[in-house]
């Protein structure tokens, strides 16, 4: 059947006739394109006129210089006011202290961000000691169950105040206390040691080469190594011989790897004439002895010196570690087969090369 040529629309080309929507869309596209073309032409004309009427290069540079001067001047004047608004007021600190006084409990610690905001150490209650920032970033936190995160909002250097340890649900969301923010994380797997060996200094005895070191109040003074003990001795500042300083062992706080470390320090460092033996009697031994060693003060350049730490329990060696003294180096000895109460634990330290003041800690992990 063919189409009737007399019916309306019969002579139109074949195909679907565009509907109302299509026609409107085509119109709209054409309109937009037209408008865009017109506007582009106008903009080109305006830009051309502006370019033709541009100031000479020297004047343009002078204008830029003047605008920069005015802008930086205004910024310089506003800066002290902006900073003053961001700084915490005494009331903010008092609120944080009151909150911690009320809610903190033994096993809590505070991490401050930015790390330089150490007014917290002066103001916050003693029940929640302030940890140095690097210590919270992946270091062991012996004895800490919960970490309070105190941050100064809007301050340069403020980082995500998370403790970087696995946490468990139930943490306190951050509270705003003026310019301060205080939150809490509960550690999922806190390290709760049986003993922190530097704190056992009262029962500690120290010997070297079979001779006991003399106790001098809280420290031990050991005889210096004899001359010519080791060829390496000649390199060291603590070279042995008449008049050499005694080796001093004490429980102290030293800076290692940019953070304060409570440790047993051995000073002056350097090669020991004979192994240094630290005896801790009557300890409960668990499955692990974990420790750290590092050099106090500035880090040495080049290859780090190495110390050997041997762990002896009731006179038998449970294990040993060669610890390169780069940063706050960790070591660990499995003591599972010795786990029991009333054990005598000895750390035997041998250094083969000259070193600075040695800082050493260890915990017994249940």
């Amino acid at each position: 059947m063919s189409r009737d040529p007399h019916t309306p629309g019969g002579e139109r080309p074949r195909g679907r006739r565009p509907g109302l929507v299509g026609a409107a869309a085509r119109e709209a596209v054409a309109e937009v394109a037209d408008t865009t073309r017109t506007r582009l032409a106008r903009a080109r004309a305006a830009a051309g006129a502006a370019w033709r009427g541009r100031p000479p290069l020297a004047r343009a540079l002078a204008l830029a210089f003047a605008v920069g001067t005015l802008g930086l001047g205004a910024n310089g004047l506003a800066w002290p006011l902006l900073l003053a608004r961001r700084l915490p007021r005494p009331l903010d600190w008092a609120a944080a202290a009151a909150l911690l006084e009320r809610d903190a409990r033994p096993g809590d610690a505070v991490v401050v961000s930015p790390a330089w905001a150490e007014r917290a150490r002066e103001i916050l209650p003693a029940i929640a000691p302030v940890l140095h920032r690097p210590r919270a970033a992946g270091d062991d936190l012996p004895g800490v169950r919960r970490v309070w995160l105190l941050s100064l909002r809007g301050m340069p250097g403020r980082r995500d105040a998370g403790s970087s340890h696995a946490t468990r649900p139930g943490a306190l969301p951050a509270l705003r206390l003026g310019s301060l923010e205080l939150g809490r994380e509960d550690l999922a797997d806190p390290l709760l040691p049986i003993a922190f060996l530097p704190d056992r200094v009262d029962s500690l005895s120290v010997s070297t080469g079979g001779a006991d070191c003399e106790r001098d109040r809280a420290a031990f003074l050991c005889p210096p190594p004899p001359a010519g003990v080791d060829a390496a001795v000649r390199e060291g500042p603590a070279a042995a011989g008449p008049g050499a300083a005694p080796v001093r062992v004490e429980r102290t706080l030293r800076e290692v790897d940019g953070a304060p470390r409570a440790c047993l320090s051995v000073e002056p460092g350097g090669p020991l004439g004979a192994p240094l033996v630290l005896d801790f009697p009557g300890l409960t031994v668990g499955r692990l002895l974990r420790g750290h060693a590092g050099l106090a003060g500035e880090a040495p350049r080049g290859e780090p010196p190495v110390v050997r730490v041997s762990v002896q329990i009731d006179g038998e060696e449970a294990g040993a570690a060669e610890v390169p003294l780069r940063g706050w180096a960790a070591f660990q000895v499995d003591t599972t087969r010795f786990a029991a109460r009333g054990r005598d634990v000895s750390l035997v330290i041998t250094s083969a090369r000259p070193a600075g003041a040695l800082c050493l800690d260890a915990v017994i992990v249940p």
Partner: protein
Amino acid sequence: MTRLPALLSRASRLGRPIGSPAGLALLAGAALATFAGHPYLSRSEAAALERGRRAAAFWAVLPVSPGRALAGIDAAFAGAGGGRPGPGLAEAVSAGIEALARTGPADLRAGRLGTVAAAALLTLLLALLGRAVAGRPGGLLAPALLWLAPRPLAAGLAAGPDGAAAALWLLVAWAYRRALLGGERAERMQAAALAGIAFGLALAVRSDALLLLAALALHAAGAAAFAWHPRTPPAAARSTGARLEARLHGVPAPVAAMLLIGLPVAFAASPWLWPAPASRILAALAPAPAAPWLAGPLAVLALATPGAILWSWAGGLALAAARAARAPVRRGRDAGAASDDALLTALALGGLASGALGLAPGSAGLGPVLPALPFLSLLAARGLVAAAHATVPAWPRHALAVLSLATLLPGSVAVSRARPLASAWSELAGGAPGAASLGLPRQDGGEGARGVLADVAARARPGAKVRFVGVAPEAVRAWAARGLLRADVEVVDDDAADLAVVAVDGGSRDAEYRARAALRADRPVAGVYVDEVPLAFVYARAGAWR
């Protein structure tokens, strides 16, 4: 109201002497001398004072007992902590002034008067050169651009060689310029001789002044190549000056004077060189070990200078460098201006290079690059004046006033906030909090501990023993002499202390931690803070703090 113009005119006439170079120098000297007695004494400043006293004692003994004096040269001019000997003329002169003016150990102003005198000379020369290169407003702007920033002002108040070095660098530049541009031949020869003597003294103050010779030789070569200065007519060839000039075979008289007069003057004024001149000169010119870039003087310059002033310094330097670079194209046109541009640019870059290459002595903060700052201030003044004229040609004076205020006001506010602490950081570093976050030094060396003395006086138990950690012993003596420490408080330096006052300067804190451990104190009992950044803490043994 009708009398107002007359009153303004009268006030302007009365204020004119203050705006003159000499008036500005007197004003700056008087202001600095007024503030120079502050008790914030850093370790580096205490070391400079001690070094100056040793050097002054050498000069005092030399005429009386030359043998004894010469035997002790190395000890007299040894660096800090018994380091290798080095120049010490500025410190010796300061110590001499201190010996004349001293009124007791409490008066730290006496030890700083030498630096204040150098700062006054610097102001005078800045005003003179500012007028010469940027007109009357330049004479006011150039000193203001230098002194209304916290760090240069602190350098003008602290004993040490850097202020004197900056003044002598500028004196050499001023004399060199006069020797090239001055009218009469005799006048030019006198200026050349002055440039030579000032160069010698600059070398005896800081050995990096040798860069002056390099910068000025370069400028002289440029001046000859591009005919920046008129050649001397040979008519007066019979005079002594003319005969001398003829013998120089084209070498500019001031450069020749720096070689022929300056080097002997430097040798005579530098006893530390006498035992082994060649090896010690080489040792002095060896660059210092590279510091971390953030602790270097250029980084300090960028992060401690208020943004608007830094911008004006950079803009002025860029403008002058661009003009100097165009000199070959514009041969002969604006010869004087091109010469000034090249001269100031060369000297500013020379001063900056000295700090960047480690040729300058290792002073704290901006000290190593301080000689560059007057030249940068001159260039900035020149740039601001030029910008005001180019931006608003109809009202250049109004435009200059607005630009000057925008540049100088933030610096003035920063000065008032920072004083008398020397270690201010600008808004570009984020102030003290930003600088602490970047690990930059919080103070020059222990001077911030002054801020806790009132607490110690109020709350230390009677007869307490106090240990100062990271603080210059000289500063502690001065505080005690001023009565800032209670009479019954005993200063000790061992673990027997009841209290420890510990300065926190951004460096190693091992000594602080040991002091804490000795006191068995985990937390401070008092502290001094700048924008929440701690500068000092007090730790106390149990029962020692009331």
